């Protein structure tokens, strides 16, 4: 290719994005999202099936494991559209996390066993790390594995109630440091696994409390290497999730803009008042900075750059800020109507605040970003 400063997605990637948008506008409409919010189903099975038929799950999974073997850039544009549509499916858990863990650390046999089924949407994977309140650190992880049996409780686990298997972080060694943590693949339908759906701020993405009482656990990656693998995979997931957040931020901004154009007060559209215009301009600024930082993350992820840790944290922090900013001010622009169940603003408000916490919260990523910049500065 060799085009100068091609700091953008290609025409083919933009076409894929349009295709994903059209599909999701039809299949993940606000009405469809509300059906999950208000109904008994934990996720939209028809949408999941449709995404599988489009081949979206297998986008960045290599062909030898049943995927399409495209690049992460294609997966980034799909992530953005999923975020825009607040899609009520376990895509991120299954593809940004479970599949990435297997690609990063799985044995050939494990990859063959799981990746084709993840790529086809036949099975769903998730990642179980947190154990209650506070940032998940090696010190806080109490779940442990002895003799191939896992015991402990994970709370909350995103999509843990709908997944077929989980990648679980557990203690295998003595001590509290990173080297005491290993990763395991655990069949969630097996005996000695008890799971219950928990109430959360965003019911359109289901979460579970999972209790393991001597459940069979298969080592993923080397023993004692779990925390290293987590750090690497979370950088991948952070870039992809940042695109999901970006899609949501843009849509929240558009909703606010459209309402400001339509809604009249004092004989004028409220979008003609500077207080409202400036709020929207600031939302645009946040979303634009986040987009540029996400492109930096996408570049680093797709080229395997050594800058990925810095780029991933940058994209993650920026996109988290932008989505929360746009989603909360979208409600503000809508005034009282924005606080009603009937208007869609809360779908974005909920999702923005959920995504700000998955993969580790904003403060955790701020901390990582500065640690990484500091290391670079010292080098």
């Amino acid at each position, binding site marked *: *290719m*060799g*085009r*100068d*400063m*091609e*700091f*953008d*997605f290609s025409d083919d990637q933009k076409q894929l994005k349009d295709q994903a948008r059209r599909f999701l506008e039809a299949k993940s409409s606000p009405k469809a999202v509300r059906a999950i919010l208000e109904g008994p189903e934990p996720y939209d099975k028809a949408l999941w099936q449709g995404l599988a038929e489009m081949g979206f799950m297998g986008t960045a999974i290599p062909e030898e494991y049943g995927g399409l073997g495209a690049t992460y*850039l294609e997966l980034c544009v799909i992530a953005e559209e999923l975020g825009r549509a607040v899609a009520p499916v376990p895509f991120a858990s299954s593809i940004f996390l479970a599949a990435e863990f297997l690609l990063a650390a799985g044995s050939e046999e494990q990859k063959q066993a799981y990746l084709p089924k993840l790529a086809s949407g036949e099975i769903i994977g998730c990642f179980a790390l947190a154990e209650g309140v506070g940032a998940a650190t090696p010190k806080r992880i109490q779940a442990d594995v002895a003799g191939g049996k896992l015991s402990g409780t994970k709370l909350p686990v995103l999509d843990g109630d709908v997944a077929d298997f989980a990648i679980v972080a557990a203690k295998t060694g003595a001590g509290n440091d990173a080297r005491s943590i290993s990763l395991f693949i655990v069949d969630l339908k097996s005996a000695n696994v008890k799971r219950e759906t928990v109430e959360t701020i965003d019911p359109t993405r289901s979460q579970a409390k999972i209790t393991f009482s001597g459940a069979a656990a298969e080592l993923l990656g080397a023993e004692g290497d779990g925390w290293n693998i987590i750090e690497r995979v979370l950088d991948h997931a952070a870039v992809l999730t940042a695109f999901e957040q970006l899609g949501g931020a843009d849509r929240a901004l558009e909703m606010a*803009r459209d309402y*400001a*154009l339509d809604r009249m007060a004092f004989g*004028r*559209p409220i*979008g*003609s008042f*500077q207080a*409202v*215009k*400036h709020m*929207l*301009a*600031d939302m*645009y*600024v946040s979303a*634009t*900075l*986040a*987009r*540029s*930082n996400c*492109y*930096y993350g*996408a*570049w680093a992820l*797709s*080229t395997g750059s050594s800058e990925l840790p810095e780029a991933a944290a*940058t994209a993650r*922090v*920026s996109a988290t*800020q932008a989505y929360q900013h746009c989603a909360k001010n979208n409600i503000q622009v809508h005034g009282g109507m924005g606080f009603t169940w009937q208007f869609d603003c809360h779908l974005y408000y909920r999702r923005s605040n959920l995504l700000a916490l998955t993969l580790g919260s904003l*403060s955790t*990523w*701020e*901390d990582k*970003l*500065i*640690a990484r*910049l*500091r290391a670079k*500065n*010292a080098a």
Partner: protein
Amino acid sequence: MNFDDTPQEAAFRQEVRSWIAANAPKQYETGLKTSGFGHTALEGVDIIKVSKEWQKKKFDAGWACLHWPKEYGGRGATPIERVIWQQEEGVYAALSSLFIIGHGMCGPTMMAYASEEHKRKYLPLLAAGEHIWCQLFSETAGGSDLAGLRTKAERDGDDWVVNGQKIWTSGAQHSDYGILITRTDPTVPKHKGLTMFFLDMKSPGIEIRPIKQVNGQSGFNEVYFTDVRIPDSQRLGKVGDGWNVSLTTLMNERLSIGAGMPTGFPELLDFCCSLETDNGPAIDNPAVRSKLASYAVRTSGLKYTAFRSISALSKGETPGPENSIGKLVAGPTMQEIAMFALDLQAEAGALLSPEQAAASARFQAMLLRSPATRVEGGTDEILRNIIAERVLGLPADIRVDKAVPFNQIPTSGR
């Protein structure tokens, strides 16, 4: 997504790099690197002389005003070649600040509206740095509301006679020429009665008074006009069309000021790594890290937004009003960074002498300079209006004076 040059661009970059390596005034490299934000590390150097010499050297070798046509002193370079030059010029670009207004705003306006004879006469001298130009737009009665300006020009034979006052004119005290917007008809609505000229700043009747700024420096001036005569041949655009002419200038102003603006983040990161506290370096403090992270992503966001604009440029697209975010983000961020750096210094944050203050007082200099960044070249509020109206498509402000003859607009709020 890639940052690679095409073979032609790589060759061009190599040519630029070699020429700069062989010709740049390296004795000032360190000083220029540690200067900025109203802080100068080049004490005792005649910066105007050094700037003019570097500009002339670039001009003689064909590296001045790269994107201008050759016949007017430029190189006829592509937008991407101009970007490559800027990237390679690095710290020496600071020596161009004297010419920013002339090259970035006056030149393009002259190119669009001056006669061919005038373009050939004045533009090469401007490109060569032999002439410095200024922009005479703002007035006490017309800042953000530029079209509210009152300096009047009246026709007298082949000349116009100008009376009035301009303010916030950067570099007027060093300038040889300027572009000037005046009111030529006060009986029509304010945007319709304006006319643009260029003039010799040494003309009789011009008086320049430097403005003492918050930071003690005097980059801006007041310029008074008393019966200053300008030949009609120096009119830019039609009589009464000055507003449209000024839009050309302002569009260029936003492009040249907004690109790649610094925020002070790398300096703050360095400072937080080196500042010792009871609990180790300041950067170990979670509250410090959280603030740094916010400044980091804004700075990075600006950098990659500029990359996206460059990418658009390379495809032949014109960067639009979305470029307004550069200054809107950089200005307030620099101010916040300055205040935060002083907070970390505690009581000693008040010290201003480079010998006593931390980091050679660069954050104090930043504190005292940053308010101007949020006002000059379009206030934060004007930039938000531009984004809201021209990017997001929100309705324009209701302007109660728009259809009223200028001389009937009220001049006092009470």
